[in-house]
């Protein structure tokens, strides 16, 4: 048995919790290992020192306080009666569900406003002066005829007749 393996058993040896075979193996090792013998004696001393701590007694009111806590516990209902036991979680979930249903219902029943044609707002763009941006009639000839070009471009070109 190695000193390392001894470490996992030393406490059980000190407590007397080792099995017979393990104890014999431990004692064999201790006979030949002075360092482990010292360690065992020191662990035994620690164990004895821990025995010196006195026990405390619970205060006189201890039992009464436990009784009061137990008495304050709600009685658990058994069988089908348990279905009627109010549960805060269930009540909260039910309230949320109810609120959501009412809200969704109010959305679907709300009358949609009828928009008359004359009510449609006229969009005015103050920054865009329509009148002044018109090219004067006199300049019409200089204005490239985009439409014409576009039309020309869109037409398949006819072979020119010479």
């Amino acid at each position, binding site marked *: 048995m190695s000193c390392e393996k001894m470490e996992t058993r030393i406490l059980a040896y000190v407590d007397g919790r080792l099995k017979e075979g393990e104890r014999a193996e431990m004692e064999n090792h201790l006979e030949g290992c002075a360092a482990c013998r010292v360690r065992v004696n*020191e662990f035994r001393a620690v164990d004895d020192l821990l025995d010196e701590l006195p026990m405390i007694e619970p205060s006189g009111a*201890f039992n009464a306080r436990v009784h009061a806590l137990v008495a304050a516990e709600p009685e658990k209902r058994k069988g089908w009666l348990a279905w009627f036991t109010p549960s805060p979680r269930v009540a909260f979930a039910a309230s949320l569900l109810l609120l959501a249903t009412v809200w969704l219902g109010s959305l679907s029943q709300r009358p949609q406003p009828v928009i008359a044609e004359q009510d449609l707002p006229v969009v005015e763009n103050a920054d865009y002066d329509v009148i002044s941006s018109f090219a004067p009639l006199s300049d019409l000839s200089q204005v490239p005829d985009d439409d014409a070009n576009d039309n020309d471009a869109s037409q398949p070109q006819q072979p020119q007749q010479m």
Partner: protein
Amino acid sequence: MTRSDVQLMLDVKAGDQQSFELLLQRYRTPLVNFLYRMVRNREQAEDLAQEVFLRVYRAREDYEPSAKFTTWLFRIATNLALNSLRDHRYQKLETSMDAPIVADAEDGDERMMEVADEHPDIEQHLVEEARKKMIRHAIEKLPEKQRAAVLLHKYQELDYAEISKILQCSESALKSLLFRAYETLRVELAPLVARMAK
């Protein structure tokens, strides 16, 4: 004939309040001591122990004797203690280093009356008190999980399988945890250990 813990708990499950009372009597002192040594505050330890009993009572209808009753009981207690220590960590940091000594002094006063009759030599009494204080502080300095392992192993005398279930670790991890804890205690208590180990 003494009924087993499991039998008492099954009786509580069946609606027998008297069985709950018997469990309370059986485990109130071990629980309060375990929690006191975990959190180092008597009032807090009692509050936590009461919470443990309340949780046991609340769980009575779902109780199944799949594990030992003590494993279940101390698992609840350990989890509550570890959570409480985490919650109070910042408070602890703000407390002066002398705070535990004040708590110890309270205990010392309680015991002073008992010891005064037994030990008329006040110097001897002071030496004993200093020794106990040193042991308490050494336990207190252990990391929380190591502390729980030592307390369950040493004072509740639970076996390795039970403690490993309570602390949710393997048995080999528990043995390693305990070894490290005892190594730390051996170093912390070196002056006392040296005298005893000779």
